[in-house]
């Protein structure tokens, strides 16, 4: 029990935190330079000097590119046709082909947009250089963008994932363990024994749920500790607020765990139900990995019914943005409403099943 409640979350946190990354860099690239001129080499350099592309091979046959992309050895191929430099020198347009492996959509999308930026910058520089060469003193107007990235300046996807992992872990641990513990007693028959004792139903429920509340809090603290230690991700919004709001979230998960225990006869059923019918859909539709904004509108409305959605916003806000309760109160309120509703309904159903 100890191992599962405490070691597993930390392990999952560390693995997930390190592995769950969308950061795209060092994209393996192959080059087919048929021109072999200073200009073409300069273009290639403008790709390699960034950390986004890593050239893994130079080829002189386009058929070789087919193999490289098929195998997955490279995700991007740059093909510079012969006559590249000549065309540029003559003031004409020189074609440049860049092929992306579209099976890894995020890599391809981001890779192509980096490539577009590099190529347009290169293009613009050529234009300006030729103007200077022609003796033009006043350069034309041009526009650029200065970017400032808030909350996550290095754009590390880990910073986005780790708070999400906390929500996920909390839900898994508390909901699953609660339902399993209660159903186990049902299976063993000890639950009926408890019912015939003079203990009151609400005392029974509190007694059953309290340990998992505590486990939940300890898990939160563990995650916070390891997140700041291993991933350099402190809770900007303050740990007390995080614990308080987590307790409200725990109301929903424990309530659901209780509910699952009333609809399952065996532990196996409880596990299947909890994981496949609750956790899996909740995990996906609450915005763990995939942003809710990209979902069809109907599903976005459905996500408002999932408590985990609000917890994700709260956790990310506290970890990354350092916002306070003034900003988070609508989500906290939603959690409170859900929590009390789910918990009371599950308790009523549990009592009915017992008596």
């Amino acid at each position: 029990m100890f191992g599962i409640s405490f070691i597993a979350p930390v392990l999952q946190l560390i693995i997930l935190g390190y592995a769950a990354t969308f950061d795209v860099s060092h994209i393996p690239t192959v080059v087919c330079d048929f021109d072999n001129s200073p200009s073409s080499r300069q273009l290639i350099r403008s790709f390699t000097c960034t950390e986004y592309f890593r050239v893994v091979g130079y080829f002189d046959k386009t058929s070789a590119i087919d193999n490289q992309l098929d195998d997955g050895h490279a995700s991007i191929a740059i093909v510079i046709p012969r006559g590249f430099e000549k065309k540029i020198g003559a003031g004409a347009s020189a074609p440049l082909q860049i092929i992306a492996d579209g099976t890894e959509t995020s890599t391809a999308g981001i890779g192509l947009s980096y490539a577009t930026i590099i190529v347009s910058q290169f293009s613009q520089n050529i234009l300006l250089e030729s103007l200077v060469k022609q003796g033009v003193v006043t350069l034309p107007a041009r526009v650029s963008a200065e970017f400032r990235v808030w909350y996550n300046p290095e754009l590390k996807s880990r910073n986005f994932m780790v708070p999400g992992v906390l929500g996920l872990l909390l839900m898994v641990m508390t909901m699953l363990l609660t339902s399993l513990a209660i159903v186990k007693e049902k299976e063993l028959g000890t639950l009926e024994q408890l019912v015939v004792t003079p203990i009151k139903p609400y005392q029974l429920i509190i007694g059953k749920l309290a340990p998992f509340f505590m486990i939940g809090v300890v898990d939160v603290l563990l995650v916070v500790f390891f997140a700041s230690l291993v991933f350099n991700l402190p809770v900007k919004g303050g740990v007390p607020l995080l614990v308080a709001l987590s307790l409200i979230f725990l109301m929903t998960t424990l309530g659901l765990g209780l509910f699952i225990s009333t609809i399952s006869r065996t532990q196996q059923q409880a596990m299947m139900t909890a994981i496949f019918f609750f956790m899996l859909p909740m995990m996906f539709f609450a915005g763990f990995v995939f942003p809710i904004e990209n979902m069809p509108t109907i599903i976005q409305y459905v996500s408002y019914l999932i408590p985990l959605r609000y917890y994700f916003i709260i956790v990310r806000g506290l970890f990354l943005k350092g916002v306070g309760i003034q900003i988070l109160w609508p989500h906290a309120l939603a959690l409170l409403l859900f929590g009390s509703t789910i918990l009371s309904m599950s308790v009523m159903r549990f009592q009915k099943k017992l008596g």
Partner: protein
Amino acid sequence: MRYIFSLNILPIVRKEFRQIKRDKRILSVLLFIPALMLFMFGYALNFDVKHTSMAVYDEDRSSVSRDFIEKFFVSEYFTKIQTLESKSEINNLLDGEKVRVVLVVPSTFSKEIKRGNATSVQVIVDGANSNAAATVLGYINTIVQQYSVRVITESFVRMGRQNMSMPIDFQPRVWYNPELESAKFLVPGLIAFILMVTAVISTALAIVRERELGTMEQLMVSPIRPLELILGKTIPYTIISLIATVTILFLGYILFDVSIKGSVVLLALVTFVFLIGSLGMGILISTLVETQQLAFMIAVFVSMLLTFILSGFVFPIRNMPVIIQAITYALPARYFLVALRAVILKGAGLSAFWDQALILVLYAFIMIGVSSLRMRKILT
């Protein structure tokens, strides 16, 4: 070898089917959940970044700046949520997640362009979701660059130089998935994920259930051999998993146009090998643990979480730290995914992934072999 086709297997298979039918929940999990996940991944869950909410603060308020700003909202990539009156509103908007991007056009924008100078706009991006943020940065850069090119060309015209064309005719091309639909990327991964999960969990439970119910002793006194028991128990789940795979492929074709570009026979072969290995792993887990709860926890942890995160299903392996990449080499799903993508999306032949296929075959042998040994120890 003739033993494998002996009659000892059939009663086991039949009994397992009967037990599956009795517990409707397992059946629904094995068949309904894959369909649900396919639906989820195809329609709801994707990485496409569209309709990003943007707020605009236009300090210039000229026709030039308005024209520039409109460029962002022509396509469906950005949605204008608000036009700001002052800079102080920016904090609240970003903190409260009302917008993800703020565009600030300086007051000197149109003046500098008319004078022929370089000017810049300020863009503030909510970096919390770094993947979306990086994509958004790329979009914005592209739009700004295109506008810059137009400005330059107009400057040329004003300076009397007309025939300047863009030096580079950039022709990007996307192979295998030209529209960059996330569904095409996710469907093969989904197959691997579902197969792995159902194979491992179902077999783990099947064996452990016998041990807990005590029916293991009955099996021990029957003339059945360990290998026969394993095969008998796994065949029903193999069939169900294969049905699930076919269902996913069928739905993927109908709903998301994911057709199998390569050889279906090759796909079936690789899937079969992977299934054997995963089923073997499920059995191995069940022979190692005593209680059902523990078996399930381990099976779930190993198959679901690790497969989801580390197999390359959602997160590209290449970008993970080297240590984690080393761990992924131990996951059969990783190799299966390479093979799946090659056959389904790229239409490649065995030559593109023979090394992955070999590892899968090895894995299947090892898993079945070791679990047979363990099973023998348990039965005797």
